[in-house]
């Protein structure tokens, strides 16, 4: 047995027959309309309030944020975010571009942005967490490993199948969101300009590098970053699945890590070495949008490097453990 292709085929068939992937698609199909409806309501109120003039809405948002800067109750941390937001909004206003142009494409861009750190990783875990542990808890691992195939090949076939499905999830999230939101907001908007390249110096926004890209190009970059983050999460979940026999335990471990990440993002700016943790680096799309990174010294390159190292180490551990361990249960 030299070819790995039949093994990948096996893993793909099992993944489909287990119906996990359908569940993921179903979750998207159920949740996206809810978000679309919420967005529709926001658009409606804005229309009533500002007579469909987006400039008024943006000005109002700028004034609201400026007012809150005066308030002593708002923590310094948050003020920084607001100062940056105000400057970005002003930039949009000056260049006469609506930052929230309604449309299926714009909705999808926002949806992907919001889904990147928690929602998409959750969907990935639905398929990644039991990819090895289920074979162990059901005992089929014995059948798998007593065939004349090297253990690393068995594991590699699982990894490749997983990466294929993870990629498919990212694409599905985009497609489903676009198709469903398009029903309500229309399918246009791929060529609307979006500004990117805001550089941050403390709370000052450096506008010299800002340039407009068409929305489709922005979404492409965004999905690329989300894909990279998803691969990292998948490889970590893969490692946990190799190390932990119970699927439930492996989901809990990964969820705890991700939630810890969102909590840390909100409070860890003082603890700078937290930036080496994978979970605070997942929000790669922030760099694209020009939202400040949670911890001083984090850049896009830094985050990509941190994620790549975490992914590589978890692969190393997965393969070492899987090829060496005794199957005792």
């Amino acid at each position, binding site marked *: *047995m030299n070819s790995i292709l039949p093994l990948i085929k*096996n893993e793909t068939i099992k993944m489909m027959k*287990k119906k996990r992937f359908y569940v993921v698609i179903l979750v998207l199909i159920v949740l996206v309309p809810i978000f679309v409806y919420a967005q529709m309501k926001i658009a409606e109120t804005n229309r009533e309030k500002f007579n469909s003039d987006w400039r008024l809405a943006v000005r109002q948002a700028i004034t609201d944020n400026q007012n809150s800067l005066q308030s002593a109750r708002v923590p310094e941390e948050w003020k920084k975010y607001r100062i940056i937001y105000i400057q970005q909004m002003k930039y949009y206003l000056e260049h006469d571009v609506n930052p929230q142009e309604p449309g299926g494409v714009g909705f999808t861009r926002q949806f992907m942005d919001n889904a990147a750190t928690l929602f998409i990783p959750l969907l990935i875990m639905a398929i990644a967490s039991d990819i090895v542990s289920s074979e162990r808890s059901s005992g089929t691992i014995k059948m798998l490993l*007593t065939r004349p195939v090297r253990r690393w090949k068995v594991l590699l076939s699982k990894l490749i199948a997983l990466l294929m499905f993870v990629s498919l999830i990212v694409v599905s999230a985009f497609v489903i969101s676009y198709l469903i939101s398009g029903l309500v907001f229309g399918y246009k908007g791929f060529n609307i300009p979006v500004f990117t390249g805001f550089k941050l110096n403390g709370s000052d926004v450096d506008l010299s590098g800002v340039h407009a890209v068409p929305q489709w190009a922005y979404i492409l970059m965004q999905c690329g970053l989300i894909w990279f983050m998803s691969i990292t999460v998948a490889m970590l979940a893969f490692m946990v699945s190799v190390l932990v026999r119970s699927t439930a335990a492996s989901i809990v471990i990964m969820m705890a890590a991700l939630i810890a990440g969102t909590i840390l993002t909100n409070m860890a700016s003082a603890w700078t070495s937290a930036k080496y943790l994978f979970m605070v680096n997942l929000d790669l799309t922030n760099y694209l949008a020009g939202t400040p990174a949670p911890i001083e010294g984090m850049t896009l390159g830094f985050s990509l490097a941190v994620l790549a190292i975490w992914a590589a180490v978890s692969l190393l551990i997965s393969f070492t453990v899987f090829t060496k361990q005794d199957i005792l249960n």
Partner: protein
Amino acid sequence: MIHPSGEERSNLATVLSVEHLRKKIGKKWIIDDVTFDVKSGEIFGFLGPNGAGKTTTIRMLVDLIKPTEGKVQICGYDVNRDPERALAFVGSIVENPEVYPYLTGWENLQHFARMQSGIDEQRIQEVVDIVRLDQRIHDKVKTYSLGMRQRLGIAQALLGRPKLLILDEPTNGLDPKGIKELRAFIRRLAEEGMAVFVSSHLLSEIQLLCDRVAIISRGRVLAVGGVNELVSGNANYVIWQLSPRPRGTEILVAHGAKIVDDPHTVLDDSIAAGLNENSVVTQFIGDSISNIVPILVNAGVEVRDVHKINPTLEQLFLEMTEGESIE
């Protein structure tokens, strides 16, 4: 049952050779020096109580567990160093036949067929026919009974035309008819030249099926040899049904038979339950049974039944370990 003599046996190809196998888990030696070999066409029994290390040994045979010391060779290839070649000769069921419940029987077989070269759809159909599962093969496995899963497991093991078949407690969960069928099936495979390795904790099972046996207790092999030599060389008992019992007992003692005072300690519960007020249990006395029976009859003792009972596994162990209890 074919019983090759010592010389004939040495001419057969060695399919499985286990040399000084040892396994340490934690600080404990779970398997301590296991050595035996299995030739082609031979049904080899691996007999021991639960927890003796049968399954651990089997897992080392198929590379699920790495031995701490010693080696396992299948058709000349080291299982540990060259699993890709060695395991191509093996079909196995370790403990229960675990298959994917959400796939059909056929899809399961396809799955395992893809893991080995040279297995086509035709071969899958062949093994399905061999285990007679063709009626239900396209149903989901979760609807199968235990017996059907067992058969699917065997079909899976036979896919690669193995030279060695390893079955771990294969009669577990089967009904008497299924057990009988399985025995006939295993014998047929062995007649075709396959080496079959069967583990069991039941002596009777091994006696009925195997040519040779290794007896294992606490991770050590106590004896390896022909089944009949090992079993018949050890204590057997005779149950007599005599009426009147006291007179019969006197005569038996007078002719040198040793009465077992407390038969419940040496017999299987199922046999001991069949004893009644006329039963006398003696140690086996060889040919003199045929001499004693007429004497009993002439003395007016009615002989209703005389039969020989093989020792239980526990008895055999007691003999071999000289009273050291088994755990």
